[in-house]
C-alpha cells in the first residue's frame, strides 16, 4: 500500500507537487501534503460536508475523492476565497449574519454555497435550502446560515 504516485494538485492557483498513495483522499492530501488546513474533516464518509471544496467549478466532498483523481484539476479551498484582503461576499455575509459559532463546519458551508451560487446565481429559496441541507452544522441551527447565503447571493448577483 505504500507505493506512491507523483501528482500535482493546483490549489487556489498554486501548484503543489506531491507524492501520494493511491488510497490517499483529496482532503488528506490538501491538509497534510499541501499544508492547507482550512479545509476540515468531520466524518470521512461523505455526510457532513465539512471537507467541501470546489473542484473544476463543482463543490465536492474531498473525503470521497482520491487525491489522484484531482490531479490536473482546479481546486479551490476556503483559503482562496478572499482576494487581496477583501473578503468574498459569502465570508462577509457569514460574519454579518452570525452564520458561524465554532467555525469548524464553516469552510465547507462557504465552499458549498459559493460553488452552487457561481453555477446557479438565481437559485430559488427552496432549492437553496436543499443544497444547504447537504452539510451539517451543530452550532447555529442553520437559520443564520440560510440568511447569510441569501444575502450573499444577492450581493453576488450585483443586487
Amino acid at each position, binding site marked *: *500500500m*505504500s507505493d506512491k504516485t507523483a501528482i500535482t494538485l493546483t490549489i487556489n492557483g498554486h501548484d503543489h507537487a506531491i507524492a501520494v*498513495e493511491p*488510497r*490517499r483522499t483529496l482532503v*488528506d492530501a490538501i*491538509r*497534510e501534503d499541501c499544508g*492547507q*488546513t*482550512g*479545509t*476540515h*474533516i*468531520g*466524518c*470521512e*464518509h461523505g*455526510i*457532513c460536508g*465539512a471537507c467541501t471544496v470546489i473542484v473544476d467549478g463543482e463543490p465536492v466532498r474531498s473525503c470521497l475523492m482520491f487525491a489522484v483523481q484531482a490531479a490536473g484539476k482546479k481546486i479551490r*479551498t*476556503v*483559503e482562496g*476565497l*478572499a482576494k487581496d484582503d477583501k*473578503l468574498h461576499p459569502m*465570508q462577509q455575509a*457569514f*460574519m*454579518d449574519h*452570525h452564520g*458561524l*459559532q*465554532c*467555525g*469548524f*463546519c*464553516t*469552510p465547507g458551508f*462557504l465552499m458549498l454555497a459559493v460553488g452552487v451560487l457561481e453555477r446557479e446565481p438565481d437559485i430559488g429559496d427552496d432549492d437553496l*435550502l*436543499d443544497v*444547504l*441541507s*447537504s*452539510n*451539517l*452544522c*451543530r*452550532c*447555529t*441551527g*442553520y*437559520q*443564520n*446560515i*440560510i440568511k447569510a447565503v441569501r444575502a450573499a447571493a444577492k450581493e453576488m448577483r450585483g443586487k
Partner: protein
Amino acid sequence: MTTHTKGTGLKWVGRAIRRLEDPALITGQGRFTADLPAVHRVRFVRSSVAAGKIKKIAAPQDAMVITAADLRAVKKITPMLHKFNYKPVGQPVLGEGVVRFVGEPLAAVVAASEAAAEDIADLVDITIDETAPVIDARDALAPGAPQIHAEAPGNVILEGKFKSPEFDTVWKTAAKIIKLEARSHRQNATPMEARAGHAAYDAASGRVTLTCTTQMPHVMRTAIADMLDMREADLRVIAPDVGGGFGQKISLCAEYVVLVWLARKLKSSVAWTEDRRENLIAGFHSRDQYIALEGAFDKDAKLLALRADIATNIGAYSCFPTTCGVEPLMAMAEMPGPYDVKQYECLARGVITNTCTMAPYRGVSRPVITFTLERLMDKAASAFKIDPIDIRRRSLIGKFPYTSAMGLVYDEATYKETLEMAVKAIDVPAFRARQKAARTKGRHLGIGFATFSERTGYGSPAFAARGMEITPGWETVILTVDPSGFVEVRIGSSPHGQGLRTTLAQIIADEIGVTPDIIKVVHGDTDTSPYGWGTFASRSLVISGGATLIAAQKVRAKLIKIASHMLEAAPGDIVLADGAAKVAGTDRSISIAKMAREAYTQTHRFKGEIEPGMTETGTYDPPGTFSNACHVAIVEVDVETGHVTVEKFLVAEDAGRIINPMIADGQVHGGIAQGIGNALLEEIIYDESGGILTANLADYMPPTAHEIPDIELHHIETPSANSITKAKGLGEGGCIGAPAAVINAINDALTPFGVAIDEIPATPQRIRAALRAKEQAA
C-alpha cells in the same frame, strides 16, 4: 444590526456587534488540534465486544503497540463524589483484564502515518472470552444481573433519595394522581470536530505540551499530571480553536493520557485524531434515562406534589471530573422545574451497564426532565379537561426568591410572563381554527408548550451540594492595559464557539471607556491563562463575565486615580470614555494609552500612591441563577408514515441582561436545533450484544437545515441580582425546552387517535407503532 466594533459615545453592552472571533474562522485561519503536524500517529484498537475477559492482545512483529501491560504505573481515572452512596470505580486508560463496552480502547498503535497506524491496528490480534453483557438500565437493576464492577453491587453506582416531611400527608389530599412513564434514549453530542489530541515533548525543558479538543484545559492538566505522577509545571495543555463541544469535551479522555505518556516515552510528538465512528461509539453518550413520574393535583388542577423514580444508564465508567452523578443528581435536584410544588419525593439512581460512558451533554438532565414534567402537565390538563396553557398558569412560580422543595433558591424570573408572551405571539385561537380545518382534510397539526427553568452560573456551593470532590464554580480573569494602551484579558474559561471574546470585550469596553477592537481575550492555554474551569454549563458569561467586570472595575478605579493625579482634578469629576479620561465640563483630557504608559514608565510621579503597571485580577464565584423560557412548537404529523415536520418554533425567554443580542439569539437557535434533533432524530442504538447500530452520520442523524423551521424569538430581560453583570446564562435553554415542546405538539396532533408518545426521540417507527397498536386494539 450594528456590524462594527468601533464607535463612540454608546454603551457596548446590549449591542449586536460582529464577533471578534470570526475573521480567522471564515478565512480558513482557525487553528484546530488536527492541524498540527506530528512525528508519530496513534490509532486506538477498541473492543468489538461489550463484556468479557481479555485473553490475549498480540501485536504484529516490529509494530509499536502499547497495552495496559505497558501502563502499569499509570493511575486509573477515578472520579469521586462524597455523597449519595457513590461507589468509586476506576477506569484503566487502556482496557486491563476485563472489557466493559464496545469501543473501549485496548491498545494504542504508534506509526509514522495515520494510514500506517490503521493498517497495523487491523492486524492486532485480540482474544476476549465473551461474557453476557447488560445493556439496558432496567436489565442491569434486575436481580441476578451480571455485576460489571465488583465495587458497585447491583450495578448501582449512586443513589440519591429525597422526601419532603409533609409529602405523604399532602399526597393523600390529591383530587387526581397523574402518572407517566417516560423514556429518553441515548444520544451523542456530536460536535462537528470529533476529539483530537497532540502531545509534543520538548527536550530543552523536559516538558510536554498537550494540545487537545477540551473545554477544560486546566482540569486536564491537573488530572493527567496526577495520573502520570508528573509535576503540573511539566505539562502544558492547550485548547486551540475547538470545533464545538456541547459537554462532550468536558470529560477527561483516556486517550489523552496515553498520548502524554507516549510523548514522554518517545521524547517526540504524537497525535491522535478521532474518526466519526470512534466518536459515535466511544466519545461519551448521554440522556439515557427512564423516569417514572407521578403528580398529585388538587381539585383546581394545581400541582401539589411530585414523585419521581429516575434510573440513569451511566455506561461502563464514571466520567471525570463531574462524575456520572451529573445526570441522575441534576434530575433529582431540578425535576420540579418552574412549578410551585413544595412536596417532593425522589429516587435517582445511576446504573452501570456495558455501554459507552455517559457524560454531560448540553442541558445535561434538563432536556429529559423537562420533557417528562411537561408531558405530565399535558396529561393532567387532559384529565382535568382544561387547556394545557391554563394548567401551567395555575402552578408556575410567581413570587421570588422562591425556595424549592429541595432548597434551591430561584432568583427573580418570569415563568408566567414568558408563557403569556408566547401564547399571545403564537396566536393560539388562530392555530386551533387551522388545526380543526386541517383535520377535516386528514392533516394532523399539533401545538406543544414547554415552560422551564435553566439553572446557570453554578457556583462552587452548587457543586459542593452534590458532594463533588472538584467544585468547578469560580473563575479568575487577569486584565492588563499594556504600555501601548492595548487591553489583554487572560481568562480561565475556554470558549469554543460561544463568542466569549466578543462579549467579554463589550463588558470591558463599557467599564474602562475603550472600544472592543483593542481588547484581546486570551484563553485555552495553561501557560498563559489563569487557573479556571473552562466553558460548560452556561457558566462562562455569568462567571467569567463577572470576574471580568470585577477586574475591569479595578482597572477603572486605577485609571481614574491616575487621571485625577495627572489632570489635577477630583476623582469624582473624571469620566472614562472614547479611549480617554476627561474632566467633566472641561476640555481637559488624557488618553488611556498615555496613562497606561505612565503607569509603567513614570511610576515615580505617583509618589508610591499608585502601584506600578496596569494589571488587575478579578475572581467571581456566584450563587447561581435561573434563566427561564417558554417554548412553543407547531408540528404536522403524517399518520401514514409517522414523519413529523416542525412547522414553526417560537421562544419567549428571559436570560437577564443580554450582552450581545446577536450572539444570544445564535445560542438559542443552536440549542433548539439540537433539541429538535433530540426529539425526533437522534438515537444511539445498541443491539442485544452491545454493538452499536448507529456508528455513522447516516444512521445517527443530527438535523440538517431541512428539519429546522423558522425560529421566532421574544425576550424579556430581568436583571439578576445573583449575577454582577445582571446576565444569566443561556447556552443550554434551547435544547432544554425544545424536546418537550415538540413531543407535546406531536401528542396534540395525535389527540384524535388516543395514542401517547412519551419517548424521545419520537421516530417515525415509534409513532407508527403507537398508531398501529391502537388500530389493532380497535
